[in-house]
């Protein structure tokens, strides 16, 4: 779903010259009403969880048995998954945009598959065919998570690349003597900074929250620990969930702030899932 939202937002991003978007024409009262309804929908469960667990449970989460190794494993998996995802998806996205634009639709279709195929099917299939040395390491999960993260990472990179006049920037850098490495480092990555951060946050959030695969592969990641610990202490388990949610939310806020800074320094205009081209050319 996030991928679809990403695409739509990218398409509807405000055009040049600061033209007001269609939503500006909506009466403000409706916007507030929608915001209230959606806010209530999300806030009530959080409030209920907070009431149930109480503030006193939060400090004790960190000292519970099994928390540290489970959290450490999840963080390691998140790091490995993120690196693999970026290394695989970023060059692929750039290459497809530059050299194989006709393949873009196909790639969009392929990258949506992990959302369509249930995780349980993926993990059972992988456990069936993966070699023994991979079965004995939790990093098998990282390979699986790369596939799961693919739709989100690709959408982020795709939106970021579409916001740039990629061909012209690449050719301009080449004509000035930049090698591919220099171009990637000095021109493309800085202009894809927020798209990159979006992909990272989405991947990390996905790994920190993934339960099915880890559980079936019999590894106690953070979500698996939360479920297991729920049978020992419900309030602490819920507090751990809220803590994870809060950390993810902090990540999102950081992205928004970085995006704002990027905009002020001439970068692309970015929301979490979409990157729109900055208005070029002010008053003549």
């Amino acid at each position: 779903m996030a991928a679809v939202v990403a695409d739509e937002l990218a398409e509807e991003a405000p055009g040049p010259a600061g033209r007001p978007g269609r939503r500006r024409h909506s009466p403000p009262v409706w916007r507030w009403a929608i915001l209230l309804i959606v806010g209530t929908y999300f806030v009530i469960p959080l409030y209920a969880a907070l009431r149930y667990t109480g503030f006193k449970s939060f400090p004790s989460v960190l000292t519970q048995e099994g928390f540290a190794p489970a959290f450490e494993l999840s963080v390691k998996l998140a790091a490995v998954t993120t690196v693999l995802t970026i290394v695989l998806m970023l060059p692929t996205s750039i290459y497809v945009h530059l050299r194989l634009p006709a393949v873009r639709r196909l790639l969009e279709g392929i990258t949506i598959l992990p959302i369509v195929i249930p995780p349980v099917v993926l993990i059972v299939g992988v456990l069936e065919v993966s070699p023994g040395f991979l079965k004995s390491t939790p990093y098998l999960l990282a390979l699986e998570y790369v596939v799961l993260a693919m739709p989100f990472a690709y959408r982020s990179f795709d939106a970021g690349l579409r916001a740039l006049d990629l061909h012209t920037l690449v050719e301009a850098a080449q004509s000035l003597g930049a090698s591919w490495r220099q171009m990637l480092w000095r021109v493309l990555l800085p202009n894809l900074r927020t798209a990159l951060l979006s992909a990272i946050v989405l991947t990390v959030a996905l790994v920190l929250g993934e339960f099915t695969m880890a559980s079936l592969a019999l590894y106690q990641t953070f979500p698996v620990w939360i479920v297991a610990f729920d049978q020992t202490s419900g309030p602490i388990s819920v507090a751990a969930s809220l803590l994870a949610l809060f950390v993810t939310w902090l990540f999102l806020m950081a992205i928004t702030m970085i995006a704002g800074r990027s905009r002020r320094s001439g970068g692309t205009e970015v929301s979490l899932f979409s990157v729109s081209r900055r208005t070029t050319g002010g008053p003549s």
Partner: protein
Amino acid sequence: MTTSISQPAGEDRAQAGATVRMQNLSRSFGAVRALAGLTLQLAPGELVALLGPSGCGKTTALRILAGFETADSGTVEVDGKDIAGVPAAKRDMGMVFQSYSLFPNMSALDNVGFGLRMRRLGSAARQRRAAELLDMVGLAAQAKQYPHQLSGGQQQRVALARALAIEPRVLLLDEPLSALDAKVRLQLREQIRGLQQRLGTTTLFVTHDQEEALSMADRVGVMRSGTLEQIATPDELYAHPASAFVAEFVGIMNRIPGDMLDLLGTPSALVGAGDGSQTGSAGGLDALVRPEGLRLTPSPHGNGIVTTRTFLGQLTRLSVRLSGDVVVQVDERTTEAAGISPGDSVQVSLADLPVLLCQPEGRPPEPPDRRSASRLPPLASQPGNVDN
């Protein structure tokens, strides 16, 4: 912003620029043949404009020279050295693109210094050189601004400074003015030409705007279907077009059936378009006459009816329908055309200039954004065509 730049001696220019030679270049994209044996040579310090309608291959030629495309056949030499195997990044060619190509994450100063950074020039020297170039294009005050804080014209000036900062052997301009409004375009046109002359950089300029090409270039190459129809100085191109296509593409040209020439009087000379050979009769051919090659006088029993008039400042352009539904355009001094209105009967006659003749068949496709005078639709199909 204006920059006053004096033109250096020809010797200096020749020392600074490189010789470029493109020989028999061909390039196809699928079934489309973009270049069909293009041969073009640029002298050191020369600015050559490639002019032509969309799809004529001019941009492909420039991109092959830049190293962004490869030719199917033919050679590209710079200073006598074949550069076919040299990647774009190693060609030392500065390029200004049609779309704004500044790096959004860098200030104007950093953009200009980018090429120098790639050449590992020290930070202080790089900044100094970039500042000089920005000053040269009149944007010293905007050095710290980012591209989105600059107007389109300013961005293209920064792009020009960036391209020149690396002291390129060849400067490539790919329709750099087409996205700008008319006034900025005119200013930038003069600035580019001034800088190019001052630095003596050999320059290939691609445009579909004939006014730009004629006003800026030392020589203009008119392209059609992947080949050069003619390359000559602007004066030569205008006065002595090598083909009917060039004649009609450059400037305004009236095409009049040769059999109707008698209606307009006796031409001083009849010259074949292309070979320049003189002939005694225009029968069976078409005559090509520029608006200034026709004279117009009010006459109650004249040979034409004025259909429209367009004020051009010192001149007024009058469209006149001759018998046989042939419409010609005639330029008159505005003071002399003051009393002439649409619907008036006038006598159109030939001025004392040679008349070009060409074959009536196989007329080339009409250039975009411009109509040949003889192709105006009949009066009945122009409901709003009354007056300016």
